[in-house]
């Protein structure tokens, strides 16, 4: 209780912090009104790869896809399926992905699993912004894909693609760990088709 009574610096009272948080959410709602387009430019690039760079791309993409380090955004019950996928029975480390740490700066893949509320949205966007390029996003489960059951709720973001661009959608409520692993394999395929020179569109 003693700590709570310490004088707060200017602008850091409970009231000020609440207001700041509220303003942040309101501005995010204004900013992200329509879904961000899925990054699928690589599909058009098929067959137009440079002969020399193409070989380099193959090597780089092989390296990238062989150790995609995930950062977990376990927002709801789907997180348990992701945890199962990471543990011994399903064993995500077969894909070089066992480094499951809440450390966005060292991560390549953001796995968003569960219902994203507007109150949580600024934090998710911040995690995405903190990740270094190249980065990919998997939306796991109905809620992350479209808001699912809670799509019409006053508090739920109807799909994380409103906030971050999504590469792979894994449907299910919740998806089984096998489904997540399949989604990860799809992402590997996608990474292998990307061109290093091609700049990813900033969302």
């Amino acid at each position, binding site marked *: 209780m003693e700590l709570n009574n310490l004088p707060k610096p200017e602008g850091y009272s409970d009231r000020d912090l*609440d*207001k700041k948080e*509220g303003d942040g*959410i309101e501005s995010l709602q204004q900013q992200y009104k329509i879904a961000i387009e899925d990054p699928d430019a690589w599909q058009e690039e098929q067959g137009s790869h440079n002969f020399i760079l193409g070989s380099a791309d193959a090597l780089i993409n092989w390296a990238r896809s062989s150790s995609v380090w995930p950062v977990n955004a376990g927002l709801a019950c789907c997180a348990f399926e992701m945890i199962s996928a990471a543990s011994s029975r399903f064993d995500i480390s077969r894909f070089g992905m066992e480094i499951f740490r809440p450390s966005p700066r060292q991560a390549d893949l953001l796995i968003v699993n569960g219902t994203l509320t507007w109150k949580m949205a600024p934090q998710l966007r911040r995690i995405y912004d903190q990740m270094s390029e190249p980065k990919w996003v998997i939306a796991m489960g109905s809620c992350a894909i479209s808001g699912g059951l809670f799509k019409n709720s*006053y*508090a739920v973001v109807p799909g994380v693609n409103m906030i971050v661009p999504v590469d792979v959608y894994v449907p299910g409520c919740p998806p089984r760990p096998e489904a997540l692993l399949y989604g990860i394999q799809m992402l590997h395929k996608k990474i292998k088709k990307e061109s290093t020179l091609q700049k990813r569109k900033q969302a």
Partner: protein
Amino acid sequence: MTTALAATEIAAKLEAALAGSTVESNGNTVVVKDAQLLAAASFLKTTAGLDFNYLNYLTVTDYQTHFELVYDLISIEHNHHLIVKTRLTDREKPTVASVVSLWRGADFQEREIYDLFGISFTGHPNLKRIFLWDGFKGYPLRKDYKQ
């Protein structure tokens, strides 16, 4: 097994101590007047033989004509149970006394009701939003809430 006390007997005791405080009573439910809620709650907590020293939960229902607050009380000492209700007819500025001074567990539940139904609790030590963010318009659990 927790025994449910007969509400009519409790209501008679309440009437004897605080005249005109009860509205009706049936089963295990006593409905008290909103103005005398705190006095009635205090009576239920402190009277020997009743000793309702634990608030199981506090919730509210929107009946459109009025809000009905529900307090589920038990006594750990005597292992008995009572439900106290109170009705608020004002939809613009519903106000009722806070029971945090009696049962500390009411703190977050009153904040939740304040957040989602817009009922303010006088005497609450820290009445502010708990789930929704600052600047959210409307009270989403009211029946007439439109997005």
